[in-house]
């Protein structure tokens, strides 16, 4: 393998690892959106909060990594459940703007809460995979990236089976297609919506716990949600496979522009993609037909 090809492969693999995170975040967004018609602007802050929670479990409570990982996911899933059942449910039937404002409000509260209780300094925690690398031919991959890809893959498969093979999963699909019809079939729509938000919270936690060792445990982690939105739009809004494809693509595009693009373009390329896709092909790659969902 020539050196240039090796470099390209390296970049693409890094992009896929980063993109897996975006895909997880976008998946969390799209699930919540499909069940409750609310685009959760607080999703990034749930992710950020989960990084801090994981840091607390690992550094303060000195729990082993995997246990802390699971505990964080459980905590955030509970938070997602409570958020839906206690807060979001109050604005059902209101215009979309209400959902935007409410989730933004929650986002600011979470951000304020974290910055008040943890302070502005950055933190980090170690995983059993930090600092280790694996050689695949000429290409060097950090074990953390492999872990991220593996977890993302596993979670996606699990969710796929959950939504197609289990009774609860199929019920969730039904209620996201038509709430009234699902309700008349005896499906407990309200509880399912809460469960979906719990799943969404768990996905935020997964992404947060995996992302924090790569970057730092910091309040600015919430920014990931904006990139996930770019992923959503690129993949096609409201489509779960689209969210995954879009996430991976955004990750790869970002890494490629980081190396080959002009200085500083890496930070904004995701947003440029978002605007360009909406201007040129608003349906995205795998999007469903847009229409007013009544």
């Amino acid at each position: 393998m020539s050196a240039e090809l090796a470099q390209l492969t390296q970049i693409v693999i890094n992009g896929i690892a980063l993109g897996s995170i975006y895909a997880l975040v976008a998946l969390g967004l799209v699930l919540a959106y499909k069940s409750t018609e609310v685009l959760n602007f607080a999703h990034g802050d749930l992710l950020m909060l989960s990084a801090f929670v994981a840091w607390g479990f690992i550094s303060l409570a000195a729990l082993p990594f995997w246990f802390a990982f699971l505990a964080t996911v459980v905590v955030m899933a509970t938070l997602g459940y409570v958020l839906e059942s206690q807060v979001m449910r109050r604005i059902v039937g209101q215009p979309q703007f209400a959902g935007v404002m409410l989730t933004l409000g929650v986002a600011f509260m979470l951000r304020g809460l974290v910055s008040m209780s943890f302070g502005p300094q950055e933190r980090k925690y170690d995983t059993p995979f930090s600092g280790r690398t694996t050689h695949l031919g000429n290409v060097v991959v950090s074990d953390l990236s492999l872990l991220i890809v593996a977890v993302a893959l596993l979670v996606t498969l699990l969710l796929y089976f959950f939504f197609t093979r289990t009774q609860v999963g199929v019920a969730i699909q039904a209620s996201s297609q038509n709430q009234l019809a699902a309700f008349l079939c005896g499906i407990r729509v309200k509880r399912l919506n809460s469960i979906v938000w719990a799943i969404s919270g768990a996905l935020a936690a997964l992404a947060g716990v995996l992302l924090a060792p790569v970057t730092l445990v910091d309040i600015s982690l919430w920014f990931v949600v904006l990139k996930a939105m770019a992923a959503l739009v690129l993949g096609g809004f409201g489509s779960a496979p689209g969210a995954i494809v879009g996430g991976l693509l955004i990750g790869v595009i970002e890494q490629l522009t980081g190396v080959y693009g002009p200085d500083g373009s890496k930070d904004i390329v995701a947003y440029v993609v978002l605007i360009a896709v909406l201007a040129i092909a608003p349906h995205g790659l795998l999007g469903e037909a847009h229409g007013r969902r009544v």
Partner: protein
Amino acid sequence: MRFDYNTDYAQDRTLLRYPVDRWIYGLLMLALLVVPALLPRFYVGELTYLFIVCIASLGLMVLIGYTGQVSLGHAAFMALGAYSHALMLAAGVPLVVSLLVAALIAALCGCLIAIPAVRTTGLYAAMVTLAFSVIVEHVAGRWQSVTGGYSGLSVARPKLFGLDVSSVTGFYYICLAVLAIVLVALINLMRSRTGRAFVAIRDSEAAAYGLGVNVLRYKILAFAVSAGVCGLAGGLFAHHLRHLTPEAFNLLLSMELVLMVVIGGLGRVDRVSARCDFCIQAVVA
């Protein structure tokens, strides 16, 4: 409690219909005119800031309150206005011309950003404006040769017709005048054909379309007007800051604007200025 009882359209369109309205607004204007003579300098400066934010939130009100389009990135238009105003002042353009051109530049960008934003549902507008805001902040930080990057860009002192108005009081009156002009202009816009088209789009896009309103054109127009007004506010904000940095125009400012508009009451131009900003300001300051 007073009920509006209209016998013709002219009554519906009058600005100040009852004598009590005239008294209230007259007294308010008078009070704002004499305030700098009575209050300490610090409060006059704070009031000036409040006027600037008022202008910006009026601009946003056109979009959110009247046309029903969500924007989470209006600080970006303020940034555009502020930077272009500062650069033009440095190049020797007179203040009034520079302010107007800054507003125009922001309005043009508003038009451009409206094209992807209004394609489908309201959520897209929210996401596009959010993304646009992040892009503007990054570009302002990175394009050092023009914007001075994160180290900042200093703004020339305001001069009006050769007169130095950089004193706290002088600048206060300028902002007050601009606020009054914008307020009257927007109220007039809203009772015109265009304003009614905006409201129709907000209430029901399909119905507006059915009645012959060119929905796409009016949505883009609403974006342009609102971005232009925000650009104007940005130009004034540049003088208030004296030193422009990208952080001054971050997402937080956009969110504050949205909050002001929502708390002030959607679709109430007169209330947004009078009531909510004072509350927000009281909390912030």
